[in-house]
């Protein structure tokens, strides 16, 4: 492979152009003798080519100068011995094997990297859904336990139980049922750039936390006694906030569509639709495609809010707290095993 055409008939470098007067067979040796003259400039190029800038040079003569130098040396010294040629063959073969290996390894890496990312994402999603299911189960358990506690307490309190229930319903600590209104709110389609087809940044029809705040406040004003948004009961200390693009009600993230259920007087639906807020959202619906609907219903059940806990009050019987602090603490030991379990 290395011999045969070692007399370069085709000059690979411009040095050939200045030496074109010489016979092609002697190009090699001549070049190697020329070398010391141009050696200071680092590249054994002929004089006219030295002014050419680097990139043009790169484009014109991409071959390693070493090849022609080696050919020249061969011309001068003669063909390598059989042993040298054999070791060269072995080295060359090894290099090519390494090249093939490199190619296939790189290919496999590239192919493997893609599912890896997808796999990670899928496992994260699975984690999230599992944790959500866990939270839901625990919430249901807490609710059941609270109902149980309420029943037991009613049995103890006796005649004043209904007043207590009323107070609980008002404060959101107890579930309520009754007639009321259901407001459904969902973002309109994001406007797209007519040229690129991409979604535009200023999305006027996007529902934000403020919308839910405004509508809940309007419902309170119209006489609502209890409100829940996507099953999250609002109480006096509830917050409706935005975290990034998500809306949080008391730290629970909501997703569209937002369903606001309100238990209240039958006039509530009409009051809401006639109010400034109702008109505003009607306008948004017609202008930006926001989904906004209000309907009255006779049968609503709103869940109790999560127990806010006591912040400042402490039980009177402090010394014997572990046994007598019944309503607050008997619940928590019972609910801890499922928390710590999985």
């Amino acid at each position, binding site marked *: 492979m290395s011999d045969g055409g*070692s007399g370069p008939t085709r000059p690979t470098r411009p040095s050939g152009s200045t030496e074109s007067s010489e016979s092609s067979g002697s190009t090699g040796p001549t070049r190697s003798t020329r070398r010391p003259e141009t050696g200071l400039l680092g590249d054994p190029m002929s004089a006219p080519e030295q002014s050419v800038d680097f990139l043009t040079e790169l*484009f014109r003569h991409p071959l390693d100068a070493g*090849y022609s130098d080696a050919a020249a040396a*061969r011309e001068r010294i003669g063909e390598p011995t059989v042993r040298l040629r054999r070791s060269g063959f072995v080295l060359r*073969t090894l290099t090519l094997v*390494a*090249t093939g290996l*490199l190619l*296939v*390894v790189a290919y496999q890496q590239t192919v493997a990297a893609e599912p890896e990312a997808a796999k990670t994402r899928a496992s994260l999603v699975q984690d999230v859904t599992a944790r959500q299911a866990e939270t839901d189960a625990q919430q249901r358990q807490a609710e059941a336990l609270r109902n149980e506690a309420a029943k037991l307490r009613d049995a103890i309190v006796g005649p004043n139980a209904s007043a207590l229930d009323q107070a609980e319903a008002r404060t959101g600590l107890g579930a309520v049922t009754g007639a009321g209104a259901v407001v459904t709110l969902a973002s309109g389609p994001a406007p797209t750039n007519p040229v690129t087809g991409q979604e535009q940044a200023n999305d006027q029809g996007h529902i934000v936390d403020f919308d839910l705040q405004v509508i809940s406040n309007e419902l309170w004003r119209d006489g609502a006694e209890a409100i829940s948004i996507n099953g999250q009961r609002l109480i006096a200390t509830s917050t409706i906030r935005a975290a990034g693009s998500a809306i949080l009600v008391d730290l629970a993230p909501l997703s569209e569509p937002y369903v606001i259920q309100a238990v209240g007087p039958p006039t509530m639906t009409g009051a809401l639709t006639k109010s400034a807020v109702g008109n505003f959202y009607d306008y948004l619906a017609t202008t930006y495609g926001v989904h906004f609907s209000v309907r009255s219903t006779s049968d609503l059940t709103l869940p109790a809010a999560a127990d806010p806990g006591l912040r400042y009050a402490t039980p009177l019987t402090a010394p014997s707290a572990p046994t007598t602090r019944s309503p607050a603490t008997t619940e928590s030991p019972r609910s801890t095993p499922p928390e710590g379990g999985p």
Partner: protein
Amino acid sequence: MYAVLAMIAGIALGVILEPTVPVALQPYLPIAVVAALDAVFGGIRARLDGIFDDKQFVISFVSNVLVAALIVYLGDQLGVGGQLSTGVVVVLGVRIFGNVAAIRRHLFKA
């Protein structure tokens, strides 16, 4: 053609063994591939020019891969790894194109 056979052997070896690359070396793999391709195309062109040399080929292969990896490593340490990678790819890409053009002239006289 021993060269093609050797390369196929390498590919087969890779498919069979499925070697895993350490995470630390993974960023250098694409650059190493481009550098290796440059050496291979340079070798093919030299072969067609009739001035192929085993030593030159092996050394250019090894040094190409090492220098490319070194430059990228240096760039990573300096915080300009992406830009230096691009630079290496551009230079090697230009060389590959030039060599392929020369090979094309050899093979098709065009």
